[in-house]
């Protein structure tokens, strides 16, 4: 019969053997790796303005949903999270289901962009992208999906231009900032944002990342890497981990003035839901959002708590409001296996059902656009710096 010593020694040796094998595998793979690809779905650059770029994903199926959807991601981190790798790509799943997708890529603000404001992002860059798509597709209205901070932008944009948006989708979107459920909401109350922007200019991406890691310091700074050694059984898993790492540390700086307004007006004063936020000289009235709304939030979101996202449905005047939650965290919304199975069908089915009858609208739209331009002396579309089609992948 094995003694306690023998039993423990046996366990111990096999543990060391496993760990050594994993470390060898990791080392071998990592030393061969200089980079890994993310953002896998083929797309074309169709429009560009300053650091902002508008891409059109190459459709996989045609004729299922004829109203294109514009995706607006946050200024924090990058939109590549939604298209991380084969098998973990919300974009790819939506393309599989016949959606026609455009995406805004905000780029990396440099020192020269320090004075770019929230108004510029929403009223100039976003609006120019919407205008580009409307003109290119001959449509009066398009579908808009905003993710995280991009969801807040999309909500504001839709309230300012309801005539251009057919359906609005918000994902893990902060709307009510006056909540004690999120550490970012609590911490930002005491932050002297003016001092920060006046001193630093643009807010460094690494500073933002450090703040995000502090939300779960032991998990994000340590256990994640220990788990990596433990689970590194093959090259595919190691590369998958590398892709997440690449995304996490790919953090653009935040344009100073836009950061100032977002923190002061939204995080500190909660002016969006009070109806006191002004963008481009106009008050943002959420009641002007009357089109169908799909509001999606993550039940275990530590960055944007559900209490911040959920109220949107009650603040708009839309009669067709769907609020849907998933039992995942903020990042899990894009990459977890559960959301891979359920999220894209939810979005695709919802939007396809509400985008029918478009051919009829297209015709009236063209007519309406020309009438509008003549009567109100207002051009329907202004296309800046049209860009030749460039293949990005």
């Amino acid at each position, binding site marked *: 019969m094995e003694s306690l010593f023998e039993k423990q020694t046996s366990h111990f040796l096999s543990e060391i053997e496993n760990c050594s094998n994993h470390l060898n595998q990791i080392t071998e793979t990592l030393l061969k790796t200089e980079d890994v690809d993310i953002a896998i779905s083929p797309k074309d650059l169709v429009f560009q303005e300053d650091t902002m770029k508008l891409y059109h994903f190459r459709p996989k199926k045609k004729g299922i949903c004829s109203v294109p959807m514009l995706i607006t991601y946050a200024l924090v981190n990058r939109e590549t999270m939604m298209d991380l790798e084969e098998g973990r790509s919300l974009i790819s799943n939506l393309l599989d289901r016949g959606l026609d997708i455009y995406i805004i890529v905000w780029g990396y603000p440099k020192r020269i962009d320090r004075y770019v404001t929230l108004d510029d992002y929403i009223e100039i860059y976003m609006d120019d992208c919407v205008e580009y798509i409307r003109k290119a597709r001959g449509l009066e209205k398009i579908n808009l999906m905003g993710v995280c901070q991009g969801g807040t932008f999309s909500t504001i944009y839709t309230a300012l231009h309801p005539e251009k948006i057919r359906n609005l989708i918000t994902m893990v979107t902060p709307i009510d900032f006056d909540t004690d459920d999120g550490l970012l909401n*609590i*911490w930002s109350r005491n932050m002297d944002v003016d001092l920060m922007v006046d001193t630093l200019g643009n807010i460094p991406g690494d500073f933002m990342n450090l703040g995000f890691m502090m939300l779960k310091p032991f998990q994000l700074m340590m256990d994640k890497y220990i788990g990596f050694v433990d689970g590194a059984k093959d090259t595919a898993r190691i590369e998958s981990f590398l892709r997440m790492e690449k995304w996490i540390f790919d953090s653009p700086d935040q344009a100073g003035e836009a950061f100032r307004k977002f923190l002061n007006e939204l995080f500190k004063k909660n002016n969006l839901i009070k109806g006191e936020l002004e963008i481009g000289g106009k008050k943002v009235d959420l009641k002007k959002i009357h089109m169908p709304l799909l509001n999606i939030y993550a039940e275990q979101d530590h960055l944007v708590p559900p209490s911040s996202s959920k109220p949107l449905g009650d603040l708009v005047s839309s009669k067709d409001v769907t609020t849907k939650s998933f039992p995942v965290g903020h990042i899990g919304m894009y990459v977890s296996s559960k959301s891979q199975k359920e999220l894209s069908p939810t979005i695709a089915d919802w939007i396809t059902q509400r985008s029918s009858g478009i051919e009829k609208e297209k015709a009236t739209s063209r007519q309406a656009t020309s009438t509008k331009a003549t009567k109100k002396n207002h051009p329907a579309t202004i296309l800046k710096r049209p860009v030749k089609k460039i293949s990005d992948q």
Partner: protein
Amino acid sequence: MEKQEQKMIQPWMDVTKFWQGMETPFAGPDFFSKWNEMIQETIGKAAGQSKKGLGSDVLSRTMGASNVFVALNEFWLEALKDLPELHRAKRDDIKTRKIFNRWSNGYKKVFEQLVGPPVSGTAQEMMTFWLNTIQKSQAATGLMWNPWFQAIPQLQAHVEKFMKGDWTALSESHSLWREVYDETLGRVFRMPAFGMTKEQTERLKRTYDAYIQFLYSLPNLHQFLYSAGMEALKEAFDKVKKLKFEEMTPESMREVYKIWWTTNEDTFFELFKRPDFSDAMAEALNHGLRLKMRLNDLSTDWCKALPIPSNQEFEEVAKTVHELRRKVRLQQKSIEQLQQKLEKTP
């Protein structure tokens, strides 16, 4: 078992010699670190030759995290040896306290290693900057304390309290010190200067004042972090007490690790939610920013003679470029509107 031993034991023979024949494999306190040193040496050599990039970055982060894991394992190996005694001393408060103190001292060493290695290069720099600043502040404080001790008799009592392990004394003594500083040396730093070098002197004195304010905002923040760390340890200690030493396996060692990090995560989460922590963090951040602003002013002044634009000048250019971009956009829109009008005119 034999095959496994043959396969594994030879390369590790030198390292494992010291615990062979002992009652339990958990008896070797530095087994993990020796093993880790060997791994690090081998992998480190290979990593040193690799090209810079994502792979190399992640490797160093992983190695950093594995260092922490090793330190933790060693701590737990030591701590687990106490489990039988702890079990026997269940109702003996003095003995339990003694064991806890032993754990607590070992834990402090581990805690010191936690900040830094597993994060990105820049984040690491930011953290080490803070840690270096604290170390420097401690060194500077040592030089500065004596005159203050003589001038503020109450400080002595606070320091004695702190030496006995009462961390609130640290915060109290810093508040007292700052109060006295503000009324004495602080006034000297903030008073107007005169003469030829008036502006330079004032700039320098303001920077020094900002530096002092920043240094003394840090201990308050660290007191929160330290207290939470110790609170988490006590909680983890209580949870681990329930484990049975005789049934300890590598799997349950992982369970111990899981208890440790999840308990810490929860405790720190509760701390981070507290408004007083948020105040302390904001205070330290704001003082840090004010210091940065003063340093920017100083460097601008010092670089005046060089043929390079200052931050302020660059900011002006950025602002002008932004305004010009807006103007161009508006004019472009007007031109296009006019063009459309013209096209529609018969």
